[in-house]
């Protein structure tokens, strides 16, 4: 309480005193604060303490800007007033500015070092930032639903039926909301002659109560709108609403969707998506209790307080209800393996491994780049030891010398961050195309988060770069250097720090190379699979027949399209099927063989095709004959059926199937087997061959709206004919929508899947890692050699064979690389499971991939050491020793 006694003058408020103190240079601090305190005391005595306090605060407020400017100016100009000569220096910011300026000058004077460092770091920074910007909205941002942790998807998605849903509706144990949905494409007719195919969701009215997102405009579906006869309504995505003009009066308007007018009742908010960002329209599906076709997925919101782990009780009850009501046959018993998937995993889980693997790869590149730049900088520090030692002898302390290094690293980091952000922008589009993102790729947009990520990566990189040289400076005895710099470096440091940087670089490169090796092997195995079709020279058009087109007209339309395409120059055959091979869709139906008492208990794939389809696809006939146009007329009564070898093996083992009668699967009609063809990967590339029946489209009384139309060329690249083919289809059937065009080779590449795309990326990144790693090994070894040139000189002068010098240096390089490889392989085992889901036919510890990675790294490492070794062996002892 001394400050309150009358003998002591009142003290100024503490906070402004502290702030002013921090802004003043050392030499003036106590003087100025004492003067201010004296004036404060005088004012407190004259005008009262509150007025004096206010004055003190005003002094701070109007002093702070000019003092801050002075710090900056002093740091930049290095000005030191004459009076403060004996106690120089200002607040720490001043010295930072000074160091940054000094570092900038040094960097400008060494353009090669600067450009190399900035570019190396920028590569890592840009790549990491771009992947982060792609991955963040998918993996990290919250899903646009209320309380997403309560949302789960049911097992066997797109295998449930309307009948099952209607039975379960309102009585699913453990859930507060429960909905069914299926995906489809609808045709939106804007009335201007343009018909657009839009990805859409057909669902029960509960979908949005489950997700818990409120529409931005209008309302969500109402109870009863998913019943037959209800008014046709639709909810639009924000993006579609904007495309349609963004007018708020859209609610209540009618749009022509799939040829039927639908009233828009709501627009979802911006940023909302379900189940992926390409979905544009949500439509209530009129549900029928007798519809047993299974193409729905079930979603639910768990009752409050329940988690996936605690759902076993309610699920047991759910399964019991299902089993009781629907007596499933053993082959597709839905009650067998109930499993709930958290919604995030269900929606984006398949993208995770590819994204994480790429992100890790980019991160490794960044680390390698950091190690490289750190090694470069370490070389610079070693080159400057004499300078640093002199500075230290003149009174610079280690903190200040380290600060200078950090300033240099920070400048490099900032420059690399800026270049990296530019690279990230360039890399973003490329990566979006290269990564297996599907619907997410179309929705990926560049945002400021790329820059933010680049800057964060740059700061991290700069810190990592500064660590090694900083440690070297901290450890070394600088004053000792002045003495030793002239007498020789034979007893100098062993460069262990540099060595460990090389080891780290090699280890990181091994991880990348081994990962890339595994993917290359997987993809090679996938490509080696025979899909059973000849993918060469086949063009593909995915078309959608107009909804209002009657079935007989559809048969005719398919024939007309096939015939028209076949007349195009360079085209030999054309055909269509409701689903093309390796597209992942397994349309199947029950099969019954005449004379077999087992009845329709098993299913096979069924494909409804045009007569020339199998020939167009390059499927080979094994027995019997292919379809002809004449088969069309009999298709409705006794259809001809072509089966594959897998079907023969399963249903007609050891007998000739030609002429036998089997069911079509869609009516009681029996067809007759007219031919046997080779197995085709109808659903997935990696599936074992499954039994399949091919029938002409006219066999069943309906035609799917979506059709895969294919044409085979006589050697010409089908991609060049796609535009003509598109025009041809438009002319032939004006109302038909063309969803997309492609070639069978591209479809095959898609079927090979994410592994192929990730492999390409990893291969590019591995090359980069190898180059960076080689540069690192080369840099460090050549620096090691230069530092000891006197050593080599003495040894050569004493009669050591030059080849032995090369051997010694290469041995050192090899030892470092070898240690790096061992550590890298150990690290790879820890990381390999990241790739697990992308691999096919190889284990995560595939010896071939590992061996290749090892050999490549070893060769690169040894080569990088040989060049400086050769140089050392040519050291002229006379020159080196004279330099002393």
């Amino acid at each position: 309480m001394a400050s309150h006694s009358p003998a002591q003058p009142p003290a100024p408020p503490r906070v402004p005193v502290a702030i002013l103190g921090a802004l003043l240079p050392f030499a003036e601090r106590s003087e100025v604060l004492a003067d201010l305190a004296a004036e404060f005391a005088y004012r407190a005595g004259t005008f009262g303490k509150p007025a004096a306090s206010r004055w003190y605060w005003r002094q701070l407020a109007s002093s702070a800007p000019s003092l801050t400017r002075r710090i900056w100016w002093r740091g930049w100009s290095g000005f030191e007033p004459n009076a403060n000569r004996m106690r120089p220096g200002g607040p720490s910011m001043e010295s930072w500015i000074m160091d940054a300026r000094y570092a900038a000058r040094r960097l400008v004077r060494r353009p090669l070092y600067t450009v190399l460092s900035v570019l190396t770091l920028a590569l890592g920074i840009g790549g990491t930032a771009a992947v982060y910007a792609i991955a963040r909205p998918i993996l990290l941002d919250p899903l646009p639903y209320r309380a997403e942790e309560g949302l789960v998807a049911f097992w066997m998605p797109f295998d449930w039926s309307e009948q099952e849903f209607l039975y379960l509706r309102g009585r699913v144990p453990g859930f507060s909301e429960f909905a069914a949905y299926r995906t489809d494409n609808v045709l939106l007719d804007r009335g201007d002659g343009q018909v657009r195919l839009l990805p859409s969701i057909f669902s029960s009215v509960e979908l949005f109560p489950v997700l818990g997102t409120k529409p931005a405009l209008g309302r969500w579906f109402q109870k009863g709108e998913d019943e037959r006869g209800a008014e046709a309504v639709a909810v639009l995505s924000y993006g579609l609403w904007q495309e349609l003009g963004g007018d708020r009066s859209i609610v209540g308007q009618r749009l022509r969707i799939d040829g039927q007018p639908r009233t828009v009742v709501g627009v979802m908010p911006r940023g909302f998506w379900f189940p992926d960002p390409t979905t544009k329209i949500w439509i209530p599906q009129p549900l029928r209790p007798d519809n047993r076709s299974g193409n729905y997925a079930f979603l639910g919101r768990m009752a409050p307080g329940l988690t996936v782990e605690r759902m076993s009780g309610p699920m047991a009850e759910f399964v019991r209800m299902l089993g009781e009501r629907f007596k499933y046959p053993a082959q597709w018993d839905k009650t067998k393996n109930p499993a709930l998937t958290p919604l995030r995993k269900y929606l984006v889980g398949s993208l995770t491994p590819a994204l994480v693997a790429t992100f890790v790869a980019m991160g490794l590149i960044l680390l390698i780049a950091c190690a490289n730049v750190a090694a470069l900088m370490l070389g610079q520090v070693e080159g400057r030891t004499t300078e640093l030692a002199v500075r230290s002898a003149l009174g610079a302390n280690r903190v200040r010398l380290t600060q200078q290094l950090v300033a240099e690293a920070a400048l490099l980091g900032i420059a690399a961050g800026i270049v990296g952000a530019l690279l990230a922008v360039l890399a973003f589009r490329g990566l979006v195309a290269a990564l297996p993102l599907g619907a997410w790729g179309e929705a990926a947009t560049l945002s400021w988060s790329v820059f933010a990520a680049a800057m964060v990566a740059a700061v991290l990189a700069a810190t990592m770069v500064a660590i090694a040289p900083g440690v070297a400076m901290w450890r070394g005895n600088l004053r000792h250097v002045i003495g030793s710099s002239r007498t020789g470096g034979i007893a100098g440091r062993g460069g262990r720090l540099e060595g460990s940087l090389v080891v780290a670089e090699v280890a990181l490169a091994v991880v990348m190379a081994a990962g890339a090796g595994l993917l290359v092997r997987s993809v090679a195995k996938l490509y080696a699979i025979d899909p059973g079709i000849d993918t060469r020279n086949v063009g593909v058009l995915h078309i959608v027949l107009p909804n209002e087109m009657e079935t007989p007209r559809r048969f005719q339309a398919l024939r007309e399209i096939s015939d028209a395409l076949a007349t195009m120059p360079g085209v030999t055959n054309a055909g269509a099927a409701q689903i093309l091979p390796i597209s992942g869709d397994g349309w199947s139906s029950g099969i019954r063989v005449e004379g077999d008492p087992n009845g329709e208990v098993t299913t096979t794939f069924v494909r409804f095709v045009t007569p020339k389809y199998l020939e167009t696809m390059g499927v080979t006939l094994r027995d019997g004959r292919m379809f002809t146009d004449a088969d069309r007329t009999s298709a409705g009564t006794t259809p001809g059926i072509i089966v594959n070898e897998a079907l023969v093996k399963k249903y007609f083992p050891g007998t000739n199937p030609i002429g036998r009668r089997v069911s079509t699967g869609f009516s009681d009609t029996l067809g007759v087997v007219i031919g046997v063809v080779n197995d085709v990967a109808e659903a997935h590339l990696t599936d074992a061959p499954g039994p399949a029946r091919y029938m002409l489209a006219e066999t069943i009384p309906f035609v799917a709206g979506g059709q895969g139309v294919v044409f085979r060329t006589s050697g010409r690249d089908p991609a060049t004919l796609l535009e003509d083919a598109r025009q041809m289809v438009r002319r032939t059937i004006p109302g038909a929508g063309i969803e997309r065009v492609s070639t069978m080779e591209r479809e095959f590449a898609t079927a090979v899947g994410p592994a192929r795309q990730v492999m390409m990326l990893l291969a590019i990144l591995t090359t980069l890692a190898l180059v960076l790693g080689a540069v690192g090994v080369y840099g460090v070894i050549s620096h090691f050699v230069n530092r000891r040139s006197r050593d080599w000189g003495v040894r050569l002068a004493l009669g050591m064979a030059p080849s032995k010098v090369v051997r010694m240096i290469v041995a050192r390089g090899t030892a470092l690389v070898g240690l790096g490889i061992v550590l890298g392989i150990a690290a790879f085992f820890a990381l390999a499971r990241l790739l697990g889901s992308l691999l096919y036919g190889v284990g995560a510890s595939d010896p071939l991939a590992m061996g290749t990675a090892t050999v490549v790294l070893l060769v690169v490492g040894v080569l990088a050491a040989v060049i400086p070794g050769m140089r050392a062996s040519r050291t002229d002892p006379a020159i080196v020793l004279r330099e002393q």
Partner: protein
Amino acid sequence: MLAVLHAREDAYGMNVRREIETRTDREVAIGAVYATLDRLEQKGLIASRRVNGDGGSRRVFSVTAAGTRALYETRTVRDRLWQGLDLPVLVAKFRA
């Protein structure tokens, strides 16, 4: 600089501040004073040295020869600009 001259032997930061304050009747921040004095010192118009007094060591400013010349020139220029202008007449004109 004029304030430094006015403060004579006691031209340290706080006194310079007080001089300006009393002569212009405006509150002046100590930070602004030091920043300005630094700039003037860098330009060589004033100089600073350490003086050990009763209140401890102080940075005391004095105007250099170059500073005096600059002051003289400024004054001359200003006087020249005023030549031929009669301030009372101007003020009277505005009042009218």
